[in-house]
């Protein structure tokens, strides 16, 4: 236990900001801006502090806070941070304030928006830091509430339906997650991730769950899987995603794709990998097939979209699927393939981080176009933006090429590691994945060509301003990071290497 509960501060400072905003109904717009940005930015500051004190040579949890909460049920308030959590806290710290700026710029009723946004941010951080299922699940579910209102109230014309679909599908998944953990608790008396992982390593967890008999252990696995699969999303549980990303306001979409989609990926690593390695291995074939389906069909579906936001939504499905592809391929590794597991797992995390940067930057760019176009965001509504707005074109271009996996930018590193692992683990999947890489290049360059090249036409034919100071403040940091992490990927992998090695060593090999 530390003198200062750093991690609690990380989680609850955004909530404190939300509370202050709630208590101050007459807050003027300027105060809302300052207050919400300060509390939203606290994550990055605390994350940087944590980074400076973090011991990257350890694979265990650091800055642990653990106090008993509900003693009769063996539930603890338990927070801790390892390389993966730190990475995602930093990602949240980077994306959240920028997404908040993007959100606040365009709307009335800033106070309510900022309040909900800070609530959402706190929930995401709680998910990344909680180590006991009970608090973890509270954060996990609670995040739906602010997300729902943010999408519905400030979103586009179809936002009501989209928000509803989003919540219902996610909730359905969560029900499985909840039942599964209730069963686990019934068998073991704990829901603590760390304790359960230890039980699993000792072989105890499997035995206890087997006492349920029949197909129950498998159902428990599938229940957990369902909850995580919907959130990530794993194909074909992504049906909520394109309408939600398209209808949500720009800033919220940035947060949804940059941070919330990582909650699912995080859950796969935090829960499924340590607790159900055997089941993951046994089901890795079909799961890999699903993830590959998401990667390939997502990229292909994006080819046909004319709504830029929907195009990027499918692109997100494609990119997040690579993380899961790597995870499932690694889970199915057999003896002799162990050398490929580490690159695959490292690639999944690097890809998750990088996707957070590039996808939120691209959604922001589309938001900029949308604002200039009075709501138009079709592939064919623009033309010649490169003439009209050179800075936007430059920054959007970098984000686009990062998303496309151009070496020298961050996107390449994750994809290379994923494919490096995948080729050894399942060569045919790697070969099939190249279809997705090609389709991605095709739709992103089509986006670039139609919107930015050619002569000024459509929306662009009239007055079309380049980025203003606020927009620059959002895009420039993201783009700088894309270049930096593309050249020095060790900045990310340095945090997760021991963890990845530890994960690889815990694989049940057959």
């Amino acid at each position: 236990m530390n003198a200062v509960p750093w991690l609690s501060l990380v989680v609850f400072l955004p909530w404190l900001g939300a509370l202050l905003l709630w208590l101050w109904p007459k807050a003027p717009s300027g105060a809302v801006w300052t207050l919400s940005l300060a509390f939203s930015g606290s994550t990055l500051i605390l994350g940087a502090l944590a980074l400076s004190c973090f011991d990257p040579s350890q694979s265990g949890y650091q800055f642990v806070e653990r106090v008993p909460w509900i003693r009769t049920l063996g539930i603890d308030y338990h927070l801790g941070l390892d390389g993966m959590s730190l990475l995602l806290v930093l990602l949240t710290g980077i994306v959240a304030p920028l997404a908040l700026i993007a959100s606040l710029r365009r709307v009335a009723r800033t106070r309510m928006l900022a309040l909900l946004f800070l609530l959402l941010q706190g929930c995401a951080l709680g998910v990344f830091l909680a180590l006991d299922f009970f608090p973890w699940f509270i954060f996990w579910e609670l995040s739906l509430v602010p997300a729902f209102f943010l999408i519905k109230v400030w979103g586009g014309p179809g936002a009501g339906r989209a928000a509803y679909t989003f919540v219902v599908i996610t909730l359905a998944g969560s029900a499985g997650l909840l039942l599964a953990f209730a069963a686990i608790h019934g068998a073991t008396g704990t829901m603590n991730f760390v304790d359960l992982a230890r039980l699993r390593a000792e072989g105890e967890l499997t035995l206890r769950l087997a006492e349920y008999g029949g197909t129950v252990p498998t159902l428990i696995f599938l229940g957990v899987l369902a909850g995580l699969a919907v959130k990530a999303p794993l194909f074909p549980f992504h049906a909520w995603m394109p309408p939600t990303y398209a209808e949500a306001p720009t800033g919220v979409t940035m947060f949804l794709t940059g941070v919330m989609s990582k909650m699912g990926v995080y859950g796969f690593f935090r829960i499924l990998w340590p607790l159900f390695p055997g089941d993951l291995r046994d089901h890795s074939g079909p799961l890999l097939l699903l993830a590959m389906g998401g990667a390939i069909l997502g990229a292909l579906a994006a080819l046909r979209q004319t709504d830029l936001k929907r195009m990027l939504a499918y692109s997100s499905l494609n990119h997040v699927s690579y993380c899961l592809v790597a995870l499932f391929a690694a889970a199915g590794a057999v003896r002799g393939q162990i050398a490929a597991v580490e690159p695959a797992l490292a690639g999944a995390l690097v890809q998750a981080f990088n996707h957070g940067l590039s996808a939120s930057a691209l959604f922001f760019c589309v938001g900029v176009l949308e604002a200039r176009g009075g709501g138009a965001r079709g592939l064919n509504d623009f033309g010649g933006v490169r003439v009209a707005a050179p800075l936007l074109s430059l920054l959007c271009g970098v984000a686009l090429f990062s998303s496309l996996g151009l070496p020298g930018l961050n996107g390449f590193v994750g994809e290379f590691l994923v494919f490096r692992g995948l080729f050894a683990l399942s060569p045919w999947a790697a070969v099939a994945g190249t279809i997705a890489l090609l389709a991605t290049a095709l739709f992103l360059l089509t986006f670039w060509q139609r919107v930015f090249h050619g002569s000024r036409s459509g929306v662009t034919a009239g007055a079309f301003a380049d980025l203003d100071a606020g927009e620059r403040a959002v895009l420039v940091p993201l783009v700088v990071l894309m270049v930096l992490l593309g050249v020095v990927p060790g900045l990310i992998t340095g945090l997760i290497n021991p963890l990845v090695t530890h994960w690889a060593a815990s694989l049940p090999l057959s």
Partner: protein
Amino acid sequence: MTLTATHLWLIPALPLAAAAIGAAMPRRAKAVPIGAALVAMTLSWLLSCAALVGALTDPSGRSVANFDWFSAGTAVIRLGWLLDPLTAFMGTLVCTVSLLVFIFSTAYLRDDPRIGRFFCFLSLFVSAMLGLLVANSLLLLFICWELVGLSSYLLIGFWYEKPAAAAAAKKAFITTRVGDLGLLIGLLWLYHATGTSLFYDGGAGVLESPALGLLGSTLLPGGWAASTAIGLLLFCGAAGKSGQFPLHIWLPDAMEGPTPVSALIHAATMVAAGVFLMARVFPLMAADQGLASVPMHALTGVAVIGAVTALLGAFLAVAQTDIKRVLAYSTVSQLGYMMLAVGVGSWVAAIFHLITHAFFKALLFLGAGSVIHATHHEQDLRRLGGLAGRMRITFVTFAIGSGALVGLPLVFSGFWSKEAILHAAEVWPVSHLPFVAGMTGVALTAFYMTRLVIEVFFGQARSESAAEAHEGPGSMTVPLALLAVGAIGLGWLGTPLWPWLQSRLSGTAVPAHGLGESLPLMVISTTIVLLGMGAGWWCYGRTPRKDARAIDPLARRWPAVYGALAARLGLDELYAATVGRLLTASAGLACFLDRWVWGGLMGAAGRTAEAAGEINQGMDEDGLNAGFDHGSEHLRSGARRYSRAQTGDVQGYLRAVAMGLAVVALLLIWGGVR
């Protein structure tokens, strides 16, 4: 002064710094970006010369400097720099041609408001190209390879307001990426099989005997060796970049870029990167040569594709009417010759031809640029004519370049390098097809270049702009003259009597041949060249074209053949009808599945939940729920746009949360009690 591998990174780093400076400047800045580019280029040129001097002192040696890039888990990803004669010759070549093209561009694009950006992109290109040359790791090479592709994309689309330029840029990027994905798979395979991507690493690199022995002896289903499969995958990338059939379709379209770009990137250097890659990994490509029972050797595939490309490019060049497109198909054809040389086992001849070709093709393109500049962007052969008198320097240098391209004997560099290739093809034991294709191509080359020179420079001016053309400034003519010197002189570095270049490149002494051995081939090929030129003169020179609208003599004689060639044999249309349609159909299918199958399932699940929510309507709400309801009530009153009709959803949702929490509590208690 010599340069070691440790400091080799400086050569690509300098132009990169210039590109960064250029990018940081305001959009309309001119002097600083241009100045930075020229200074960096000059310094890199000096360094590359120093590296060449160093490499020549010990041609059989190679020095490497490897370093860790980053690690993933316990696996360390390593990169490195490599200095050997191949790197050194190629580096000097790229720097020399780049420097001359840079100087030419200062005049050619003087009136373009974005000339600063142009030099920024051009510097980025040179940096990536040089990085590709000095890489001692297939991964680093791939990184630079893609960056070269990016800069090519940016420069082809430099005049992006033109839809044709924007489309050509995209076509180039996508087509080469098809090949690059093969290269990527090959890279991954190589990495997986050997655990490294370094070429040379004190015995542990992929091009050193332990790895080669392993790859050459690992057999795959069907009797293929692993090295054959990997080699062919790497060749996919090389074929895309170097415009080999069937991926050659992007290169002629790439001529939409400014002409100096065509000269530097799409003629002299980048398109030769594929040939360079094949030369670099030649030990790997040849690792299966000892196996008698494999279905095909990797190099055989290279030779066949090279021969087909050499012939196809030459045929298509015959029927083009755009001066740059003639030269572009000629480049396709010449790249085919280089691949052919690699395929028949003589990578040294391929690099020799690469070097001479870089000079004379850059010369031809810059000459074409000089013509285009003088005639206010007139590129149609039929509308030019009679420029020999008005643009004397351009004419003389262009004629020298043409002489080198067709391979006029003894004086011109192209003669010697082409002879080296034809000689290697002649003695190839596997098949005579490459040799026959090469010889046919020689005749066609002579024919279309004669046509080009006559149409552009002889006869009478057939448009106003051609009639008013005059020679450009010294910054245009001096590079032409210097390149012309190279187009003549470089051939003497590698004659059969004195094969200096060959022995330096390969690092082993290459014995000189007496003239007697190579004379018969030289006589035959010279005869073929003269026949081709004669045919060209017969068709176009006897009665020069008088009117831009007059029908081409070939089109009059064989309209069907000429029409097919002019339409590029319909390959673009074929791809659109097959690959393009397949992709569109798959995308349509993906959308259909998404909307109706998965979407339908999820929708059904959603409606079930909705129904369940309604059943719960009557349930009591606990404190938490009430609190949420209060909050949502507050919100709702703020959001006037949203009608009451939708509020049921919110309540339904909140009830579901409450239900969920109740279930958790019950289950937890049940579990805890048990």
